[in-house]
């Protein structure tokens, strides 16, 4: 089982945090700090598996990580997961992100935290691997994103201008707007 998935940058700033086992909030932050501490002092030419880190799950607990440019992708797993398999999974996840964001970089993760969560949700569910086919994942994510977009997206409201117009009580606008010398006749518009 995957107990947690953590993405943070070279300075330890979290970019995505997902726990599949319950931890109190301060515990979560402690785990993030400890994991960063352990992973950041690793040389680049050592293996990608780390034991130790005493906070999650005691002894049956391993950190499997990959370092891409400015980001660490860390999967905290127990012994039921194949270490080499998880390394491959991290690669699949990153390549999927790359496909969804088109040459993904740290900024994409910063400004689209929710989207990254949604992508991850199609790969890992309840701490278990759900889907590893990149095309499948990106297709499903695309459809859902389009559904969101058709509703106006997270911004919820359509552009300000449109909502402003919708809220206007048009019959109350004077027919004659006096702008200095110009006299404009406002046509009568039916209310929306």
């Amino acid at each position, binding site marked *: 089982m995957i107990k947690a998935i953590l993405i943070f940058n070279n300075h330890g700033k979290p970019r995505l945090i997902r726990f599949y086992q319950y931890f109190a909030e301060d515990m979560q932050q402690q785990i993030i700090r400890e994991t960063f501490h352990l992973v950041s002092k690793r040389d680049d030419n050592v293996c990608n598996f780390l034991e130790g880190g005493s906070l999650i799950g005691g002894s049956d607990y391993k950190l499997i990580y990959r370092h891409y440019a400015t980001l660490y992708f860390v999967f905290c797993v127990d012994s039921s997961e*194949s270490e080499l398999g998880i390394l491959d999974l991290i690669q699949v996840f990153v390549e999927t992100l790359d496909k969804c964001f088109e040459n993904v970089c740290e900024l994409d993760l910063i400004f689209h935290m929710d989207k990254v969560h949604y992508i991850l949700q199609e790969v890992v569910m309840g701490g278990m*691997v759900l889907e590893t086919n990149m095309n499948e994942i990106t297709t499903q994510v695309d459809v859902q994103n389009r559904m969101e977009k058709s509703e106006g997206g997270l*911004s919820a409201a359509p552009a300000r201008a449109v909502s402003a117009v919708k809220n206007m009580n048009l019959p109350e606008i004077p027919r004659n707007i006096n702008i200095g010398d110009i006299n404009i006749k406002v046509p009568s518009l039916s209310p929306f």
Partner: protein
Amino acid sequence: MPAPIRLRELIRTIRTARTQAEEREMIQKECAAIRSSFREEDNTYRCRNVAKLLYMHMLGYPAHFGQLECLKLIASQKFTDKRIGYLGAMLLLDERQDVHLLMTNCIKNDLNHSTQYVQGLALCTLGCMGSSEMCRDLAGEVEKLLKTSNSYLRKKAALCAVHVIRKVPELMEMFLPATKNLLSEKNHGVLHTSVVLLTEMCERSPDMLAHFRKLVPQLVRILKNLIMSGYSPEHDVSGISDPFLQVRILRLLRILGRSDDDSSEAMNDILAQVATNTETSKNVGNAILYETVLTIMDIKSESGLRVLAINILGRFLLNNDKNIRYVALTSLLKTVQTDHNAVQRHRSTIVDCLKDLDVSIKRRAMELSFALVNGNNIRGMMKELLYFLDSCDPEFKADCASGVFLAAEKYAPSKRWHIDTIMRVLTTAGSYVRDDSVPNLIQLITNSVEMHAYTVQRLYKALLDDISQQPLVQVASWCIGEYGDLLVSGQCEEEEPIQDEVLDVLEGLLVSNLSTPVTRGYSLTAIMKLSTRFTSVNRIKKVVSIYGSTSLILYCCNDPISSWISFNFHLTECPLSVCQTFQLQLLSPSSNVVPALNQGTVTQVIRVLNPQKQQLRMRIKLTYTLKGSPVQDLAEVNNFPPQSWQ
């Protein structure tokens, strides 16, 4: 009230903060705005606010006041609301809070929603954080979805079912019918999660395990198709067809084949095929190979297959990729007990891994090396291990030293080699040697009668170089006290020191800041013992009078070969009692041999100068070997006649 700011605006603002305090201020301000927005029950902007809350939560700020809002979002009709609402529920809520139960009805409705993506969200949430009550309530819905033909939903239902079973094991039975044709699926996502579900059921229940054994042929067929099918672009990862599914199936086969001969036999061929045909130039191939090896080792496979597996591990050890080396060493460590000979063949590669830069790899190589030491390879292996001990990090030294002592004790080809090895450990890693090694080493040296002169000479020379490593100093002091006569008498091969030089060294230990109280005890004892062996008795008396203390322990050593007993006095300091000034003079014992069968006695006179008229007590400790087993006896003499000390 102006519209709440967008998520990206908040992120942009927070990124401009130059200090933690500034960031906290911005967050607090925004939280206040969000709170009032929640109070206004604004449906339009709720999703935006919750998104911001989740962002702040990730940075470590409290977000619990958004929990109920997530529930409201889940109940909304809009997909956007549900999406962020369910995410918020998974991140902010858990079964410890009663409020999560309010979700049950929503999830139930959404599991039957007309849009598959809404159903998917519900399955995901239930499968991540569903409590036992929720699982009980909704298991029926999950079971229904497990039978649907919609592969998107079916794969999620399978993993949701795993979660339900984990929470409420009694419900496992109800999913049994739905598993009937899971493996006939074409969709790999469904196949994958189905295998996970079957694995979970087999691991939890022996009955299920027996029931699912009949699936072995089908699993073997699926695996075969994957490796033989040739290029299939949807599932291809670096030229291998769905490696994740292959690994999953291999794992299930492992569980089904364990302790079952028929199943194991049915999978023998496919395992051999995967083991020989898998392309290993990329990590994905190695993941499959690794899983195959683990399966071969765990089931009842024939010996040829096992040797093949271990050879694969041996090849892994030569791989440039350190991850591969790491998993190979881990696996070899697990199999070295059961397949010792096969692992022996890779000994030299394993020993090479001792020189690896990676700490995890070094540790495993060390453990494995010790497991492989035997009578035939002891000389060569010990060379490598001693070299490792010299150069390794301090965190390894204690374990390595203990390992060397154990191996030397079991397989030493000669006594001289044994002593040399011990010397090497004491001089290179002397401060890391465990406390119990000292008496064990003393015992060992005592038993090697013909080596006494050689040993004491080498230890004396070591002391001249370095007195900082306490175990070395303690053993050396003991030896000098015991065999000091051999040291100065010219029995050694090299130039012998004179008595005063030896006493200089021992006295130096007494006064040195580097010596611990235990070490001082050893060196004082040694000096005392030398009073029977050296002629500079006055000097010895002086030293003892300055440093001596009240309690006396007699050590007796019995060498089974020549059957003589020598009395050795060992003074220990008693830090809690006040040090008294005693002067002791030990005269030579009447004989060096206690006759057997009560045919005689040995007498030794101890003259005690006791100016403070303290009560005399004597503690006697006897250690000897009887029929090869060590025996220890303690006795105290408290009934010295008062006239002797009053």
